[in-house]
């Protein structure tokens, strides 16, 4: 598969970031997180595509959400960029799909992996953070009228994510 630990001379030379991304890919394939998947989009190791399946019991239930993950060249020392490609009604997701999350900004740590990022995104869908929202309208609705918020979110899920 990918140059593992056992082969001491990989076929191609890769940078440290590439090596780390390759390892993450291997680990993700060996032990995929629940209801998530991820992998390189094409030949480019630094551009991944991921899917998250909406958690049952949330308005996103049943939806399949596609995300783009773009790794910086100095990954893992800088966070990857995570962008929803599927439209989603969520106070922490910008209209263009950029996910606003602490661990993808200042809270990033090189010890975090894509697996952990995907799990974090998934838990963000379950528990939105209206106090650090990027779409204030949705956050207001979430705090003021939760039922209506959930209805709209479920409707968006049916419209865009199925």
């Amino acid at each position, binding site marked *: 598969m990918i140059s593992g*630990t*056992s082969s*001491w*001379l990989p076929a*191609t*030379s*890769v*940078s*440290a970031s590439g*090596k*780390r991304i390759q*390892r*993450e890919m291997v*680990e993700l394939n060996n032990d995929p997180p629940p209801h998530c998947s991820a992998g390189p989009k094409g030949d480019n190791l630094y551009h991944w595509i991921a899917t998250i399946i909406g958690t049952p019991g949330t308005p996103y239930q049943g939806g399949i959400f596609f995300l783009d993950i773009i790794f910086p060249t*100095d990954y*893992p*020392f*800088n966070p990857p960029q995570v962008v929803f490609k599927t439209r989603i009604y969520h106070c922490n997701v910008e209209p263009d799909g950029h996910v606003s999350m602490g661990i993808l900004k200042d809270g*990033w*740590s*090189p*010890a975090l*992996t894509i697996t952990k990022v995907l799990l974090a995104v998934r838990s963000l869908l379950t528990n939105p953070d209206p106090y650090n929202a990027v779409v204030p309208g949705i956050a207001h609705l979430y705090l003021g009228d939760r039922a209506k918020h959930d209805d709209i979110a479920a409707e968006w899920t049916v419209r865009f994510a199925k």
Partner: protein
Amino acid sequence: MVESEEQKRSPIIQKKLMESNSQNMATLISPRFKSAAAMAGWDEEALLLATLIVEDTPVRDSKHKKRFVLNSKSPHNNSSRKRRVLRNPRPIVLDLDEEETPKKDNGKKKKEKKNCVSEGINKVEENENKLTEKNSTTASALPCIDKLREELSCAICLEICFEPSTTPCGHSFCRKCLRSAADKCGKKCPKCRQLISNGRSCTVNTVLWNTIQLLFPQEIEARKVMSTTNNRQAASQIVIPETTFYTNTRNRSIQPIYPSSRRNDIDEDAALARILQRQIDTTTTRVHRNQTSSSSSSSNNVGRVRTRRGVSTNQDEDAAFALRLQREEFLQAFKSNSSSNHEEQPSSSSSTTSLGRANLRAMATRAMNLRNSRNRRM
């Protein structure tokens, strides 16, 4: 049965025993024990004698007999005296058990070795008994190696920690990874975000590093070798300087594109052979310095190795030697790999290279044989 044993002892010893023990006989054997012995049909004197023979004669004809005597008395181990007697032969019993514990260690080592050094190493002349023993242990050695790998890998590069450095909060990373994390992401632990005190975090956790080197010699050697093969001059040095792994991976792509001249390759092979030869020589002499045989020419290494093996040596020396050998092997493998990329070589030079290579391989095999046999002895 014990009586017949006793008759084999010289009468002088018997007399001495009687003398020395008649005074403290009362203290030696408790009344309870005496009654128990009487019930078993032993008379006191015979009992005492049997006891003392075992205790006072550490060197007996054979372990077998000793244990036989021991067994015959084993029902009466109530008295303290008896217990003392029983404790004495215990080293013998332990001897049998102790073979189990080193065997496990050996199994571990052997497994590593099997992984690292490719072919030809394991065909050592030895009896089948040991061979089967070895096979059984290799199969069961370290079932938790995957867990260990996970546990000992760096959270930043996701590989086995290379020169691990431990933060004040107790998390370990490759030294280089931790340094760049501190540079680029602030001075906090990547795992728990605790503050890392300035600069202190760049010391290598030696215990952890040694453990990793012992557990994953292959990976570590691979990294080290990669650094050496890049640094061409380093091939002539025995102690390889630590170099950045990442710079090496970057440089590696250059190597096939600008291969050094063939002439150079051959020279390096020869140099390598010389180094290896020197190492083998020094090690063998170091190993057998206790013995007084003459160290003659290096050409009959095999004989020297075979006749003088089994002398106990420093474990560290062994480990260092093995590491060096492995390194050379990898170097060698890499060389043959890269040289095969060159379309054609002058026939004369290629024969020289292959000759050197064959020599090297033979030497490595011999050295590993030596090590193998020594391991087995211990």
